[in-house]
């Protein structure tokens, strides 16, 4: 007992023991420490850092051959670290687009239902806090963990790149990396909210985890197959005019753009590769006269604005549904 008291007193300054902390912050505090010390987070952290260093290694070994003379992207050598690969290991941003959903799902799938099955939910709800504190605090804490993780990884990657190549990033490259990290956080936040939604909807954590993974698999594997089938069915004849071909391309693109993963990879490629000028089909007339050169950061961001809006909308949509259904839910013990 006494040694516990002693340790707690030692940590006194750390958790502001002499101040009244707002209950919301108390919950966030506890949630973050729960997340960070949980085994699943440690495992995911391990996997993600491992893949990051793997992609770092391939990027560094291939950076010499990546730069060609007269390459308009030559001035953005540093960004190439995040995007190039030799085909054996995917690049950094591909890894994030693959592991990000997994991270979001892992942090969110048992948000509400585990509290319910452990019997802590009704005890927590009988404390003088508003009901939405709980779900908001859970979201904020998971998002904080993700943000810290991604910024740490992104900057670690940048620092290692600087040390090994000896190249400092230009300010524009730096901001592009920051925006890339922000978009990645947003993408994971979407999956996190989807997982929270399922954790409100299903009573068993295993069910909600399976449901999340099912959605993830559907969106990454099966949706593409379905779109391909539709594409084959509605493909215009070979002799069709330009207008018809463009229309066809647009329909396929709209179908693909529903995917959050597609939105994310569009957004990140545009941000990390300044030479990407358009995300839709371009006619020969549009390209004619264009000087092949990189876009400034502002223009790149303008280009991905619809993608960002779509991702934010999907995230907010999931959160609103889980918020409303949680607020209307009657909380009973177990």
């Amino acid at each position: 007992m006494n040694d516990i008291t002693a340790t707690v007193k030692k940590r006194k300054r750390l958790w502001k023991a002499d101040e009244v902390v707002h209950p919301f912050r108390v919950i966030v505090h506890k949630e973050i420490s729960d997340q960070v010390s949980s085994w699943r987070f440690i495992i995911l952290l391990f996997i993600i850092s491992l893949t990051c260093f793997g992609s770092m290694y391939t990027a560094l070994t291939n950076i010499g051959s990546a730069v060609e003379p007269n390459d308009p992207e030559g001035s953005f050598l540093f960004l190439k670290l995040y995007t190039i690969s030799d085909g054996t290991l995917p690049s950094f941003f591909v890894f994030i687009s693959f592991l990000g959903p997994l991270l979001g799902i892992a942090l969110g799938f048992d948000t509400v239902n585990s509290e319910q099955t452990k019997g802590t939910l009704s005890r927590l709800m009988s404390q003088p806090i508003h009901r939405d504190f709980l779900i908001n605090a859970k979201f904020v804490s998971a998002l904080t963990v993700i943000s810290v993780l991604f910024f740490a990884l992104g900057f670690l990657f940048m620092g290692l790149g600087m040390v090994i190549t000896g190249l400092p990033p230009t300010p524009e490259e730096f901001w592009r990396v920051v925006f890339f990290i922000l978009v990645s956080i947003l993408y994971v936040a979407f999956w996190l909210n989807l997982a929270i939604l399922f954790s409100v909807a299903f009573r068993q954590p295993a069910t909600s985890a399976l449901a999340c993974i099912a959605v993830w698999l559907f969106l990454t594997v099966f949706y593409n197959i379905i779109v391909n089938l539709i594409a084959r069915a509605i493909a215009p004849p070979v002799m069709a005019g330009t207008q018809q071909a463009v229309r066809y391309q647009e329909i396929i693109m709209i179908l693909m753009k529903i995917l959050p993963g597609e939105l994310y990879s569009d957004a990140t490629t545009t941000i990390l590769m300044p030479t990407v000028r358009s995300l839709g089909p371009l006619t020969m007339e549009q390209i004619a006269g264009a000087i092949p050169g990189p876009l400034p950061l502002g223009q790149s961001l303008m280009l991905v604005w619809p993608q960002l809006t779509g991702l934010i909308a999907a995230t907010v949509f999931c959160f609103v549904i889980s918020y409303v259904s949680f607020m209307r839910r009657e909380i009973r013990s177990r």
Partner: protein
Amino acid sequence: MAENIIELRDLTKKYGSFTAVDQLSLAIRGGEIFGLLGPNGAGKTTTILMMLGLTDPTSGSVRVCGIDSTGNPTEVKKRVGYLPENVGFYEDMTGLQNLIFTGRLNSVTGMEAMERAEELLLKVGLTEHAGKKTLKYSRGMLQRLGLADVLIKNPEIIILDEPTLGIDPSGVREFLDLIVRLSREQGITVLFCSHHLHQVQQVCDRVGIFVEGRLLAEGDIRSLSENLFAGSPYTVEIGLRNPPQGYHDQNSARWLQELLGSIEGVGNVSLNYGKYMVECTRDVASEIAAKVVEAGAGLNYLNRKEYGLDDIYHRYFEGREEQ
């Protein structure tokens, strides 16, 4: 003391066409231990949830400490501690950490929460387990930790929902003693919900019998039994060694009736499992004994039966089954 600290008026809760709580009106006075007694599914938990503002009533009003629970649940929850049925704790935190967490949610500083938590752990007898993760706690320890958890906010009212579920008999007695002691020492009002008659009888000042969303009766146990067994408040059980005309014969009951008929206040006599039940309107046990001994019937058993909650409960259920 006489002020009503909890007031329910015509409280109704419907789930679709099912009525969980039906026109419930109840007043609980400050400082008393009130037992809400009813079978599973009677609507006890629903009533508690409405008191805490965790679910909205379909109609009617709830006032706890003079505050409307539906409109201002946070203020109510500051004053009311609720120990849910099957309480759970964060299993990867120690008992002490769980209590400090609850304390801090109630806008107490970390240091103060820790001091209070230690004091309460001492009170509920968990001091030596304070540093253990709650995963390793037994059921009884969890319930005691639950009680400490409820008390850490210095509540005016504590609501205990089936608090003795799953604890062994000696643990139950300790737990009940603890509740009574805390209530008396600190003047806390206790609402004790249970389907265990004997536990409720043991600790509660007043009892409400709650079946299918309706409050069937309310009052202290004595007045409940007086109301219910009006006309025959006493029953005297008699055993005879050598009854006059055959042991299991109904005629012997008639004989006894005739024998005792001269005593004022003796009503019906019946034979029940070898014992004669004499219904009386007043305490005539000694006169009965004198008469029986005088007749030489060999009195070997005499018991003045008092009605406990058990009988009250059963009487209500019998009534309901007939409907």
